[in-house]
């Protein structure tokens, strides 16, 4: 029984409830002396019935779907032989996944033990009965909700007010999703990061100078203990972001100044959207451009000067990231420069200053907090940018500030650690969440500081 079928059944029940509710209100009304004796219009009674039939049942369905998997897993594991149950968490998980894979038809029976085959049958049975129970339960809840409203239909029932207050709560729920999302992000990275810090001491992570996250399969292997020092990643990230800023800030700022102060209206109307195309290009395209065009170009230029340039140099990734951020810096500075009152501009020009002097001595100092805020936002984007560095920066963590060498970044490491198979109890996988936590808080901090700076500036002219 597919979930979509259940949803379809639920939807038709809602429609029926609507029709019956409306009909019932008319009936009640005609007994009481016509439609005008009702508090609300008949269709409001219908909506009320449909909402009661739909919403609680939807909630039940959601809860069922959320906990079905866990419930079935615990039931099956409880039935497994004792020696299997004694396995460690990850082994047991693997064992159980084999059962599920077999039950879904994706695995050969010959590789499984008898106990697993039995468990798979049990899984099938549980799954089938769960599907039926789901349908029956949802239908019952829905019918109960609809019937409760139908029994309550009376001329004095304030159906419209009730429908509207349910609506207001729904609207509130939609906007509360933003809070839930933030909470979800913080919880998901925090939980796994805490598990990571149980295995790797916090200080080793924060101050370690060496990053090589491989974990040994056997204990006696060479390099058996991975090291999780976060400093090389931080330095690499900052190096690439610095290169990006060195390109984006001058070009973006000067373009904004030129377009807002010098350019004719026609040129501005033509140039601004064109430069903003750069912001709409997907980052994977920039990554491709960096890896296949810019990096070889920088390498060959460097070699003609006799320099050794890594084929995945920080310079290539940073330069392309800078191009990506140009429109971002440009529009932010543009808004801020335009927000400086014309009276200041005119006063300076009236005293005989040239445009250039006005810009450098009046406009930029006045707009400085805003520009700094904008640059901080741009830095936070550069730090969080993923695809360009995944495709064009290196993988090995090297502690260097030479932009011609290959460095790696926080985001690159998150991707390399998490793409492919994951084991949720090895420090290697958990490290990605610790990095995610760092990334989230660094970008959050930059944004908060930037907003604070911008807000303080705005108060000056209000």
């Amino acid at each position, binding site marked *: 029984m597919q979930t979509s079928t259940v949803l379809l059944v639920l939807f038709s029940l809602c429609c029926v409830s609507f029709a019956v509710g409306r009909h019932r209100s008319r009936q009640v009304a005609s007994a009481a002396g016509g439609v005008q004796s009702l508090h609300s219009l008949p269709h409001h009674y219908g909506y009320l019935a449909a909402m009661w039939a739909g919403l609680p049942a939807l909630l039940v369905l959601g809860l069922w779907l959320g906990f079905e998997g866990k419930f079935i897993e615990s039931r099956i594991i409880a039935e497994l032989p004792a020696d299997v149950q004694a396995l460690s968490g990850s082994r047991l998980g693997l064992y159980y996944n084999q059962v599920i894979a077999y039950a879904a038809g994706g695995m050969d029976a010959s590789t499984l033990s008898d106990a697993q085959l039995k468990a798979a049958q049990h899984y099938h049975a549980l799954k089938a009965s769960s599907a039926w129970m789901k349908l029956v339960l949802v239908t019952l809840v829905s019918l109960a909700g609809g019937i409760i409203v139908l029994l309550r239909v009376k001329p004095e029932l304030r159906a419209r007010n009730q429908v509207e207050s349910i609506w207001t709560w729904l609207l509130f729920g939609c906007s509360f999703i933003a809070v839930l999302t933030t909470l979800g992000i913080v919880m998901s990275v925090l939980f796994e990061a805490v598990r990571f810090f149980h295995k790797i001491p916090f200080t080793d992570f924060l101050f370690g100078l060496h990053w090589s996250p491989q974990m040994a399969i056997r204990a006696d292997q060479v390099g058996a203990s991975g090291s999780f020092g976060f400093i090389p990643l931080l330095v690499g990230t900052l190096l690439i972001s610095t290169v990006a800023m060195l390109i984006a800030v001058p070009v973006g700022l*000067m373009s904004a100044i030129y377009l807002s102060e010098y350019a004719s209206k026609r040129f501005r109307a033509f140039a601004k959207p064109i*430069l903003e195309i750069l912001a709409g290009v997907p980052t994977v*395209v920039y990554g*491709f451009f960096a890896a296949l065009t810019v990096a070889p170009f920088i390498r060959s230029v460097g070699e003609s000067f006799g320099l050794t340039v890594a084929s995945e140099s920080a310079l290539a990734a940073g330069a392309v990231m800078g191009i990506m951020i140009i429109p971002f810096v440009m529009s932010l500075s543009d808004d801020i420069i335009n927000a400086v009152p014309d009276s200041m501009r005119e006063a300076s020009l009236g005293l005989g200053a040239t445009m250039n002097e006005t810009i450098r001595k009046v406009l930029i100092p006045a707009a400085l907090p805003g520009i700094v805020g904008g640059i901080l936002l741009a830095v936070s984007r550069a730090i969080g940018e993923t695809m360009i560095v995944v495709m064009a920066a290196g993988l090995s963590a090297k502690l260097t500030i030479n932009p011609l060498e290959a460095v790696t970044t926080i985001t690159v490491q998150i991707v390399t650690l998490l793409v492919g198979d994951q084991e949720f109890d090895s420090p290697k996988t958990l490290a990605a969440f610790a990095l995610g936590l760092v990334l989230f808080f660094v970008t959050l901090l930059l944004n908060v500081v930037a907003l604070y700076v911008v807000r303080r500036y705005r108060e000056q002219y209000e």
Partner: protein
Amino acid sequence: MSNETYKNTALIEASLKKRYAREMRFQWMGRIAVGLGFVFLFILMFDIVSKGMPAFTQEYLRINVDLSADTLGVGDNPSADDLDSANYGGAIKSSLRDMFPDVKSRKDKRELYRLVSVGAEYALHDKVVAEPSLVGHHQEIWLLAHSEAASYLKGQVSRDTPEAERRIKNMEMDWLDKLAAEGRVKTAFNTQFFSAGDSREPELAGIRVALYGSFLTLVVTFLLAFPIGVCAAVYLEEFAPTNRLTDLIEININNLAAVPSIVFGLLGLAVFINFFELPRSAPLVGGIVLALMTLPTIIITSRAAIQSVSPSIREAALGVGASKLQAVFHHVLPVAMPGILTGSIIGMAQALGETAPLLMIGMVAFIMDVPAGVTDPATVLPVQVYLWADSPERGFTEKTSAAIMVLMGFLILMNALAIYLRKRFELK
């Protein structure tokens, strides 16, 4: 006194030249900055288009294929089953040997077989199964060329590069020249690129599966993000009381807009895949993650659109006795809709180009079949670009660029639609 004034004027005049020169320099710096922006954009586009154009054509070789029952390994009157399992690869190989009788050594022969794509076998299979009367004859058939051979025929590889540095050897180039001289080479539009899924062979790879995946993912994203975003915007603009909770919601929305996309991927992995056990690699999870990511964009633009609706509309509705909810849903929202749609389309365009969070939830698998529903494993267009960009074969570089061109085409289309809506809205 007059002397003094004269001295000042002279001083000013002397400094003016310098000041004007500085002014000119400053203006030129501005021009150069804008110019640089244009140049970067032009180089980027030119690079992608020039790399990607060749991928829209494919090279075919006309081979005199020996379809005798013997080479195919079937009896004289083959049944449909026999034809289905006949040895088409062998037939192509022996035909190539017949066309180039001087090729003797085992190693050279292997090079010879590499002129034709491995997919040619299946194309031949389909052709013969559809037309069993072909069996027993020699037939001139156009077969798809291997990607390396094709890149020579398209003129992307030159003989000047040292032989060791290219994948296609002099020998193969000679054979291809001979075929070309006999008129056995043709170039045709690459329909396979739009009709096939991913493949290990560049000449067989296509974007159809990725397009379907992108479509399904975007549908999920839109179905979630649009209603939720509009409802949230309506609540915050029209109903929210000014209190701590509302402040909290607003701060959260603004912060979410600046959270790096990869963090949303971590959220998807930890919450939807590990906790709720939704299927990995599925458009459902991808759509949910992208919806959460685009929600702030949609909420912020929808709020601006609702704000710009003239209060007289709202007040007129309230004045004739509509409830607040009716005033908003019957009168304010329809007027704000073009603005809301503009913002939503721009949000969808962002979602279409997004890659990083989808890598986290496993949409990087090698997928050859079109996903039938939102819970089937799928990949999306930008992830396909990422996967191909990682492949070392030269043929994939042009495929990557071509896929980027298709992706950018869709983005331009969506943005053009958004601009059109905005323009119409402004005229009102």
